[in-house]
């Protein structure tokens, strides 16, 4: 019998946990912190003392509604919580307060794009619910597990997609879009390295064309976009391997081992939890009115896609520049400030996308950590626009000088370092003539053959070198062309 070749497709659903950037925890008053000394941000409630009651932080509700609105979800009119019961030392109460049957946001969607030119694809969002985070256990000590409860009670949203994602690249695009969205909404820093955004991937396979869902596995705690991609690709291949041998794919909870580039099971079907959800009676229901929703809708900030469109339509940026600048909200805000300082959009985009980004990449920092205020950079670009210095000198010499003296005035700094262009035609013509006299053969070749037009670059290079950065390239080119055609 001929071997049947079945093509499989991957079916992926994501669960994304995102820390909300409130000042205080979700049900307790102490601060939400990262990297604070262990157990320094606690309250009797957080450490599970009897007689304590949870008290809901308004800030988390507003933030959850904001992402719900931005992802086209229905917002519940009545919000209640539920207890998810399980025993673990970093969960002192013995249950996690979360939402079960009635999540605050449900049934939405987000459109993703694999790149700026690809068609959009709609990914359904099943639900977004609120919950508290657990503490942290470390197992490095010999005899004990050490528990730090600072993180316990930090506010989280969990976003669950429909199984609409088909490839690892789509999954990465979705996570990146959600990360960008929550940053634009200002509800989370969503730093994956700090664990502010964590992703679980539910993966199953089915023969191409089938509409039935296969048995899925869940890979937990993917903490970078790279790991999302690798873990899904690995699990897809693993399941195909099993299916080809006519084996059975079993339900399992897996963890991704970055070093070994493979996964392993942390829980099998037999060990599956029984969480015994029930409504949390200690938190009275919260009613969300239409008036509140209308008000929050009006307060929604401009999102990346809208900003991108505006940059193209109103400021005339290319799709490429607009995409690059709106990728990160901090970049877009910096750009806006350059525009506010009357820098033309194309030049602002160019400086931000090339020179400032180069500094960020070199120093592995973000634009928010760039030492120069937008006004300072605007003053520098203004010198180029006014023809006082050349753009290459501005980028290669004045910018580094300014970074060393962030408080200096760019114009004075340029003068002090003799970077100002010399506005002197006689001086420039003398330099041009000196160069042309140096290369009589090439001048002849240039005049005789159209193919030798490239020689102008050689002449220009020589002249600019002799001018020590003080010749205006455009003017030099103009004068040089005149001399050559004379």
């Amino acid at each position: 019998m001929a071997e049947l070749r079945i093509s499989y497709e991957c079916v992926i659903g994501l669960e994304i946990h995102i820390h909300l950037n409130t000042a205080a925890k979700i049900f307790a008053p102490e601060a939400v912190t990262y990297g604070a000394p262990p157990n320094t941000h606690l309250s009797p409630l957080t450490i599970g003392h009897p007689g304590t009651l949870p008290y809901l932080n308004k800030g988390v509700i507003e933030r959850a509604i904001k992402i719900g609105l931005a992802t086209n979800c229905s917002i519940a009119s009545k919000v209640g919580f539920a207890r998810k019961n399980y025993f673990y030392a970093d969960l002192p109460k013995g249950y996690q307060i979360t939402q079960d049957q009635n999540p605050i946001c449900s049934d939405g969607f987000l459109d993703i794009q694999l790149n700026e030119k690809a068609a959009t694809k709609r990914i359904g969002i099943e639900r977004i619910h609120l919950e508290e985070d657990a503490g942290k256990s470390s197992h490095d000590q010999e005899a004990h597990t050490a528990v730090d409860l600072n993180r316990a009670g930090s506010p989280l949203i969990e976003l669950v997609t429909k199984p609409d994602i088909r490839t690892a690249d789509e999954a990465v695009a979705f996570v990146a879009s959600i990360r960008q969205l929550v940053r634009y909404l200002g509800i989370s820093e969503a730093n994956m390295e700090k664990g502010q955004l964590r992703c679980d991937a539910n993966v199953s396979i089915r023969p191409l064309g089938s509409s039935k869902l296969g048995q899925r596995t869940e890979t937990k705690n993917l903490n970078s976009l790279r790991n999302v991609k690798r873990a899904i690709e690995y699990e897809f291949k693993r399941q195909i391997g099993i299916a080809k041998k006519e084996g059975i794919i079993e339900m399992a909870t897996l963890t991704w081992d970055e070093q070994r580039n493979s996964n392993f099971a942390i829980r099998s079907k037999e060990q599956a939890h029984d969480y015994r959800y029930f409504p949390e009676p200690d938190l009275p229901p919260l009613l969300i009115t239409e008036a509140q929703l209308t008000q929050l809708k009006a307060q929604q900030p401009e999102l990346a896609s809208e900003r991108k469109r505006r940059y193209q339509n109103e400021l005339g940026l290319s799709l490429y520049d607009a995409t690059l600048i709106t990728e990160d909200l901090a970049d877009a805000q910096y750009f806006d400030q350059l525009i506010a300082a009357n820098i033309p959009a194309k030049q602002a985009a160019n400086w931000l996308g090339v020179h400032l980004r180069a500094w960020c990449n070199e120093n592995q920092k973000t634009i928010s950590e760039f030492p120069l205020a937008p006004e300072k950079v605007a003053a520098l670009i203004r010198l180029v626009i006014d023809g006082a210095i050349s753009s290459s000198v501005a980028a290669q010499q004045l910018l580094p000088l300014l970074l060393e003296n962030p408080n200096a005035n760019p114009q004075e700094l340029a003068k002090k370092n003799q970077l100002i262009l010399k506005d002197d035609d006689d001086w420039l013509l003398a330099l041009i003539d000196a160069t042309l006299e140096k290369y009589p053969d090439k001048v002849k070749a240039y005049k005789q053959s159209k193919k030798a037009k490239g020689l102008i670059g050689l002449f220009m290079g020589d002249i600019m070198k002799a001018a020590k950065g003080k010749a205006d390239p455009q003017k030099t080119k103009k004068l040089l062309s005149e001399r050559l055609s004379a």
Partner: protein
Amino acid sequence: MKIDEATFQHLAKLSKLQFSKEEQAIIQKDLERITDFFGLISAVDTTAVEPLIYLSEQENVSRADEARNTLAREDALRNAPKHDGEHFLVPKMIDK
């Protein structure tokens, strides 16, 4: 309600409790009597009744997002059976 062997073992596991054969016989019987007792409530017709979740009539109880610390570390650790001055120490557990 009949508490069969499988249900009993499941409950024991969830409660992190262990029972001898003799203890199990007694507890199993007790559990059956307790669930039967609560079963009496099923006699009431609740077709048009909303489930009662909250005993208080309060709604919309929330506080402003302001952080303040209410418990010093040394106080938090004071009741812990074991600690190292910084962490709560619990028996070794590896979640793998």
